[in-house]
C-alpha cells in the first residue's frame, strides 16, 4: 500500500500574506465597510448632479433657476411635470432646479473653504509645533482669541461691512475655521519633533522645511483627510446658517440656506419648501461625517471614536 500523498505545507507558507502598504490596506477596509461605501455613493451622486445642473435644467426640467411662473406659486410636488417634481416656491420657481444649483454653491463653498482652512491650519500648526518659541505663542494666541468670538456673530458683522460672493464667503469661513486643525497639527508636530528619525534627519543637515514636509507632515496626512471631511461638513452648515439669516449667498443665486430664509411664510402654504433644502443639507453633511468616521477607522482602527465628528463639535 502506497503511502498517501501528503503535501507538506509549512505553517509559514500558510501564513504568508502579500505585504500591502498603508493606503491599499485602508482602501481594502473601506471597500468592506457598507456604511462608508453607501455614503460615498450618495456624495458622488450629489457631485454629479451638481456638476450637470446646467444640462439637467435645460434638457430635463426646461426651467432656469430664476424662471418664475406666477400661476403656479406654492405648487405642491407633482409627478406631472419634471420641473415641479419637488414643487414650486412662492414665485412659482422650480424647486428641483434650485436645489440642484444650491448643491453647486454648497459643495463649492464647503470644499473650497475646507481647502483654505486646512491650508492655514496645517501651515500654522506645523510651524508653531516645530519652531515653538514666540511664533508658537502667536499661533496659540490667535487660536484662543478666535475661539472666544462667536463665529456666527463675527460672520454677520463681516457680512454687513463687505459684500460677499460665494468665493469670498468660502475663503472667509475657511479663514475662521482652521482652529481645530491647527491645534491638532500642532499637537502632533510637538509629539513627533523630537523622535529619533527626526533627529537623524536634522543631524544629516536636513532643512526645517524639509523636515516638516517630508518627515512630519506625511504622518499627519491620514488624520488630516479625516478632519477635512468633518471640515467640509461644518463649513456647509456654517454657510447654510449664514445664508438662512440673509448674510451669506445672496438671491437670486439659490443656496440651500437662503432657500429657507423666508421660511416663516412657508409654514402654512408650502411645507415642502422647508423640508427639501433642509433634507439636502442634512444628507450631504451626514454622508461627509460618516465618510470621515469610516476613513478614520480604515486608517487606524485603534483610533475608533477618538477624532472626527465625535471629537470636533459643530462649526457654528
Amino acid at each position, binding site marked *: 500500500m502506497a503511502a498517501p500523498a501528503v503535501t507538506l505545507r509549512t505553517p509559514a507558507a500558510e501564513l504568508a500574506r502579500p505585504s500591502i502598504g498603508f493606503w491599499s490596506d485602508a482602501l481594502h477596509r473601506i471597500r468592506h465597510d457598507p456604511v462608508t461605501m453607501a455614503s460615498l455613493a450618495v456624495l458622488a451622486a450629489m457631485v454629479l448632479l451638481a456638476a450637470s445642473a446646467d444640462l439637467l435644467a435645460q434638457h430635463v426640467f426646461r426651467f432656469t433657476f430664476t424662471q418664475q411662473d406666477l400661476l403656479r406659486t406654492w405648487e405642491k410636488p407633482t409627478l406631472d411635470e419634471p420641473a415641479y417634481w419637488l414643487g414650486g416656491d412662492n414665485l412659482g420657481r422650480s424647486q428641483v432646479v434650485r436645489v440642484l444649483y444650491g448643491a453647486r454653491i454648497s459643495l463649492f463653498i464647503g470644499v473650497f473653504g475646507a481647502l483654505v482652512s486646512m491650508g492655514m491650519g496645517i501651515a500654522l500648526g506645523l510651524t508653531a509645533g516645530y519652531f515653538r518659541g514666540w511664533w508658537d505663542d502667536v499661533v496659540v*494666541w*490667535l487660536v*484662543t*482669541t*478666535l*475661539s*472666544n*468670538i*462667536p*463665529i*456666527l*456673530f*463675527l460672520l*454677520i*458683522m*463681516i*457680512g*454687513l*461691512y*463687505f459684500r460677499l460672493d460665494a468665493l469670498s464667503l468660502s475663503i472667509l469661513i475657511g479663514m475662521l475655521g482652521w482652529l481645530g486643525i491647527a491645534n491638532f497639527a500642532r499637537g502632533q508636530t510637538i509629539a513627533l519633533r523630537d523622535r529619533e528619525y527626526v533627529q537623524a534627519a536634522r543631524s544629516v543637515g536636513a532643512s526645517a522645511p524639509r523636515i516638516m514636509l517630508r518627515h512630519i507632515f506625511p504622518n499627519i496626512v491620514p488624520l488630516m483627510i479625516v478632519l477635512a471631511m468633518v471640515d467640509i*461638513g461644518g463649513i456647509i*452648515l456654517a454657510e*447654510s*446658517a449664514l445664508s*438662512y*439669516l*440673509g*448674510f451669506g449667498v445672496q438671491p437670486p443665486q439659490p443656496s440651500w*440656506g437662503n432657500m*429657507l430664509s423666508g*421660511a416663516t411664510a412657508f*409654514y*402654512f402654504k408650502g*411645507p415642502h419648501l*422647508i*423640508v427639501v*433644502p*433642509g433634507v439636502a*443639507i*442634512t444628507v450631504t*453633511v*451626514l454622508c*461627509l*461625517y*460618516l465618510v470621515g*468616521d469610516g476613513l478614520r477607522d480604515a486608517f487606524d482602527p485603534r483610533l475608533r*471614536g477618538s477624532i472626527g*465628528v*465625535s471629537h470636533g*463639535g*459643530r462649526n*457654528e
Partner: protein
Amino acid sequence: MGRFIARRLVQAIPTIFGIMIITFALTRLSPSDPVTIMLGNNPDLTEEDREELREKLGLNDPLPVQFVRYVGDTARLDFGTSFRHNRPAIEVIGERLPNSLQLSVASLLLAIVVSVPLGLIAGVKRGRIADQAIRGVSVLLHAVPLFFLGLLFVLVFGVGLGWFPVGSMNVIGESCFFCWDRVWHMAGPVIIGATGGIAFIPRVLRTEVLEILGQDFVRTARSKGLRERVVLARHVFRNALIPIVTLFGGILTILLGGSVIIEQVFNWPGLGRLLFDAANSKDYPLVQASVLIGSLLLVVSYILRDLAYAWVDPRIKAG
C-alpha cells in the same frame, strides 16, 4: 486657589486684546465711511460739515490713537450709541441679554439631563445596540442644521399639532420672566438649543466611562466583592462626571453662536435676534457692541469653566 484665579485672569488679557483688535480692525477696514453712514446722503450738509463731524468723532486721528480710545471707552463700558434706538448700545443689549441667558441656561440644563444617562449607558453597554443607537443619533444631530431642526419643530408641533406657540416669549398682554407661560413659550427653543449639546456630551462621557472602567481602582472595587451596581455608581460614574464641568464653556459657545439662529426661528427677543435686526438696519455701533459683548461673555464663561474645573479636580491647579 487665589493664585490660580489670578493667573487665569491675567491669561485672559491678551485674548480680550485680540478680540478688540479684530472688532476694531473690521470696522476700520470696512469700505463704508462712518460719517456717510451716520448722515446719509443729506444734500443740505456741506463737505465742511462732514469734515467737522469726522474731526469730532476722532476719525482723523492716527489708527493707534483711535484704538487706544476704543479700548478706553470699552473699559468705561461705553460701547457707542445705537443709530436705530438712539440710546447707548450697552443699554439696549442689557435689556435683551437676560432673555438670551435664560434660554442658554435652560438649554444647557436640558442637554445635561438628557446626555448624562445616555453617555453612561453608552459607556457601560459598549458595542451593544444602545451604544450604536446613541452613536448614530449623535452623528445625525451633528449633521442637521439647527435652523432646519427648529423650522421642523415649529412646523410639526407649532403649526401642525398646536402644542407649542409659534414664536415670541409670552402670550399677548402677559409679560413675565419666571412663569408657566414663559416655560411653555421656551419649550421649543430650549429643546432645539439642547440638541447642540446632546450631539456631543454623550460621546465625551462614553469615552470617559470606558477609560475609567480600565483603571486599577475599578478592578480593586470589583475584586473586593462590591456589586457591579455599586462599582458603577460610586467609582465609575462619579469620576466620569468630572469633565462635564469643562463642557460648560464649550456648550456656551455653541449656545451663544446658535442663539442668532434659534432666536430668529422662534422669534425670541434676545442678543442674537438683536444682532440680526441691527445688522439688517445697518446699525453699525450696535453690531460692533453685540459682537464685542458676546465675545467678552465667552471669555468670562471660559474663565468660570476653568475655575470650576480646578475646584472639582485639584490636579488642574498644579498644571
